[in-house]
């Protein structure tokens, strides 16, 4: 199914390749490079390209392209999902998914790719299983390995594959039994010039970190499960129980995993935590413009907004910005034309304001496109959709685990138009 995989960086170098069937020459990537050349932005390269003998399916992750070559008709979602799984696995193993990290761990990468696909078909992709086959490198272990010369490969037989539940290995033992859940919500919103919401939805995810002895069976219930539409679960969740009782019942994998993803969309009005008063204008005459932005809290559910940051992609003609900020500081990145204003904590008594003059390239025409503001923020201890976990119960084991739920709200693709 998947014939070969090429990893390509932003500047267009192939730095790793893996073939599961016969070897395909580099030249097949030329079609990709041609398309990349043509695109305004490297990210604009379409994910599926067709060449006379192959299809190239590409995903773009963290400034890298994962380019897979397939020879026969395939379900596109399958390949795309798989490539993302590969990237996720790298992220999981090495902490980030970047060229330098992959090059540093080229051995582990080859081992992983070998285990994940055989003859072009996905083999082991579940991170728990993989981690038993190939141990993730840690700084401590790599030091120990260098001293003792031992390897990263598990010496024991991979028991997980023989256990009845594929995502959990048997005989897990901990002295401290803990189960933590992080409810993380991201607001995707587009606000127009006057502050009205054009579009808003909440993407939520529950990340779990479960370290429990034995084979625990957990049940997690919500105060208000009706809020959620479009849920997607880790395979361990019993879907029938969710459909009938709206509770999550599952035998958890060991360690960190994503329990569920969900959407809260247009049916429920989405609370927008901040408002923005802005004016960005460029003068008809003279090479300059004026910028004035104020941000204030709107619906924050009584919590403080933290890590507030505003990013503005300026028109090409803007050369520099001479501004004053009442709070935080700003930088203007000239080559990328991005103005970043890092505000930090939002104080409702004294609203942060950024004001000043933008200077344009002399002789350039007045920019026709007003930039839009991308806002980044974080609110601790609240899920903006109002979702609350009511209880977590454990069956199947005798001990009392330590339980905890944490909520955090962030801005996802939060954009204000001007």
């Amino acid at each position, binding site marked *: 199914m998947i014939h070969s995989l090429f990893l390509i960086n932003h500047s267009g170098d192939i730095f790793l390749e893996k*073939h599961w069937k*016969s070897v395909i020459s580099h030249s097949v990537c030329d079609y990709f490079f041609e398309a990349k050349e043509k695109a305004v932005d490297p990210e604009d390269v379409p994910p599926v390209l067709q060449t006379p003998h192959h299809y190239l399916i590409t995903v773009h992750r963290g400034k890298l392209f994962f380019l897979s070559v397939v020879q026969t008709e395939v379900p596109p979602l399958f390949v795309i999902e798989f490539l993302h799984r590969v990237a996720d696995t790298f992220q999981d193993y090495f902490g980030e998914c970047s060229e330098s990290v992959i090059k540093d761990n080229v051995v582990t990468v080859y081992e992983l790719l070998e285990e994940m696909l055989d003859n072009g078909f996905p083999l082991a992709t579940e991170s728990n299983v993989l981690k038993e086959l190939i141990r993730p490198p840690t700084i401590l272990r790599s030091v120990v390995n260098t001293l003792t010369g031992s390897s990263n490969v598990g010496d024991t037989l991979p028991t997980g594959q*023989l256990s009845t539940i594929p995502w959990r290995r048997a005989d897990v033992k901990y002295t401290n039994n803990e189960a933590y859940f992080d409810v993380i919500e991201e607001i995707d919103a587009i606000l127009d010039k006057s502050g009205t919401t054009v579009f808003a939805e909440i*993407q939520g995810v529950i990340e779990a970190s479960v370290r429990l002895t034995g084979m625990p069976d957990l049940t997690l219930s919500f105060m208000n499960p009706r809020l959620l539409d479009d849920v*997607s679960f880790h395979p361990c969740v019993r879907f029938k129980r969710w459909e009938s009782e709206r509770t999550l019942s599952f035998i958890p994998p060991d360690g960190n995993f994503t329990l569920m993803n969900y959407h809260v969309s247009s049916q429920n009005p989405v609370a927008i935590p901040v408002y923005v008063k802005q004016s960005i204008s460029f003068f008809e005459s003279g090479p300059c413009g004026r910028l004035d932005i104020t941000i204030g809290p709107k619906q924050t559910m009584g919590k403080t907004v933290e890590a507030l940051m505003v990013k503005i992609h300026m028109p090409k003609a803007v050369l520099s910005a001479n501004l004053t900020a009442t709070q935080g500081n700003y930088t203007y990145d000239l080559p990328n034309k991005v103005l970043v204003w890092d505000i930090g904590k939002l104080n409702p008594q004294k609203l942060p304001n950024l004001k000043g003059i933008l200077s344009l390239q002399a002789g350039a025409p007045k920019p026709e496109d007003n930039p839009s503001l991308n806002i980044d923020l974080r609110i601790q201890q609240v899920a903006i959709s109002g979702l609350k976990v009511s209880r977590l119960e454990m069956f199947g084991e005798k001990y009392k685990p330590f339980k905890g739920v944490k909520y955090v709200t962030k801005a996802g693709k939060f954009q204000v138009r001007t």
Partner: protein
Amino acid sequence: MPYLGSEDAVRELRRALSNPNVQSDQLRYRNTVLKAIRAMSQGVDVSDLFSEMVKACATVDIVQKKLVYVFLCSYATLNPELSLLVINTLRKDCQDPNPMVRSLALRNMTNLRLPSLVEYVEQPLAAGLRDRAACVRRVAVLGWAKLHNLQPDAEIDAAVVNELYGLLRDPDPVVMVNCLRALEEILKKEGGVAINKPITHHLLNRLKESDVWGQCEVLRILQRYHPQSEDELFDILSLLDASLVSPHPPVMAATLGLFLGLCSGLPAVSLAALERVRGPLLAACGSTSRETRFTALCHIQLLLRSLPGLMGAHYKRFFCGYAEPAYIKQRKMQVLVELVNDENVAMLLDELKGYCTDVNPETAQAAISAIGRIGRSYSDRCLEILTGLLGLKQEHITSAVVQTMCDLVWVCPQCSDTVCSALEGCEEMLQDSQGRQALLWLLAAYGERVSSAPYTLEGFIDRVRSEASLGVKMELLTTTMRLFLCRPSETQDMLGRLLHYCIEEEMDMCVRDQALLYYRLLHCGIEETHKVLHGQRSDPSLGVLIGRPAEPINQWAYSFNTLEPLRQAGVETEPASRGSPEHVTFDPKPNTDLSDTLNCSQIEKLGTPISGQLLPFFFAEPLKFHQVGWGASVHSHFQISPEMFNRVQVRALAGPLKDIHRVVPKPLLCYLGCVLRFVVLLEDEPSPQSEVQSALEHVFIQDVSVHCCIHLSLNPD
């Protein structure tokens, strides 16, 4: 570290690998092997190290073993004799007590891909099928498929096939799925793995145990099964219901594909299934992965062909974010156009207007043409926006607006007044050839109503010497001719100059020939000229997009969950297949709408479904003064009658390739005045390109130079 050329690097590595001091120190040995692999991954040819690497294979260190295997598998084909040495080590590893080592050895043994080694591999593979560890069986099963690929013509071992069928009942779900995959490859010639009722039910019952990938595979293979009774069909459907709303987009798509296949005779059930996947599909559209979003969008477009109202209430989901890549934005706009209705039209147009000033010119153009599409049903609002955009005085925007208007007036002639008044003063802003071509076309069509038309043309004619685009020159000729017919006194002089230039000085044969044709045409009298230039054209009212009837699901079900809906060309052929006359450029670019048309599968797509209901066609009647007696004999060679989409003529050749001259050149010559481009659909794959070319050249008179580009259809096996 000093810079080393690749040869030096290889020499260095070889010295290190054969150094006994390095070999005795396991860690240094492994690091040296690692360096070799790293060099390999950077594209350095390290195949010379093969014999050293074979030695490095005999080690207890599993990591080193894995590394060496990676190396050996990449270079084994270059060194078949030396690879024999590896086999012994591998066979020994197949007896190892650790199942991981066994599976590793087995996998790499089959990855060497050397036909000469097959005899050594078969025995451990057969043993592997009966191994007690599941991970070994998984590898062994696929190993047989790899072995078969090595010798595709070899006799298929019936015993192995039987054993593989037996292993479908293996307790390990991955082994089960791998068996399916292996049988699929081994029995490819017989049409893949045989699916009967017991196997189907067994697979369906165990569907839940497999991982996502396995489920997709099983669902895909089950598409081949035909339930024997309606009861059985509904049993299967109810089993599949849970996977239909699966949170994993690939499973959801595979299930829907199977659903549509099974229910091809039950449209009501299929429609209900489409309704049911709306939620998961919309969720996929909001996925964090942009590639998934894109794929979901493309599939939503398919669904909308049968159920236009499916996403009506969710149109806001398709609004574009600022940072989204261009290909997603363009697809989203195409979906938005489909979703427009009386209630949301104001919102939608407002939104699209915002995209028109996008930094990416292609996105901006897509937004403008989307507004044009909507304009077919809401012309007043859209024209207002379009004329407003002209005020921005941006080159690419003006060009896109003029092209859009050109398309719009064809369908909605009532807009022509507004368009005519908007045209004044555009020509300075138009730099690209498509935009100027569109402007010229508009002037040709409405020349009598645009007061400044002769002056604009005069400007064009004065600059014709420096004009680079062939299309613009051709269009200019036609426009001047047509304007001459309605405003002779103002244009006579410039027409004379233009014809003189084109006949005497122009280097391009196409232009020169066209000019000669017009010149001779004028000799035949004004009546004759009028007849040719204001000849029939397709009736625009028939091509209107809005109110298009919903297509039956079977029309597209076969392409669901394949790469077909994602193909780029799909975007460009759309105008033609819709039957709406778009303005088509002359430059034969391989990636525009032509790219598909020589594909045999496209014949049906372009021909049968639309010719009857949407597209008026007419047959190119030979002009008297040019040729005589082609009409009857030509006709029998067409599979479908030629079709005309605003100057692009499409013909299909039913007969063998050598008959091409009967179909193409003569009618083309007769119709030169109105045909910009000629598309011939060929039944057979034109394997040697030269054959077509020579066939064409043979028939074309020396005077006519033809841009012949041949697009082969892509038929991956």
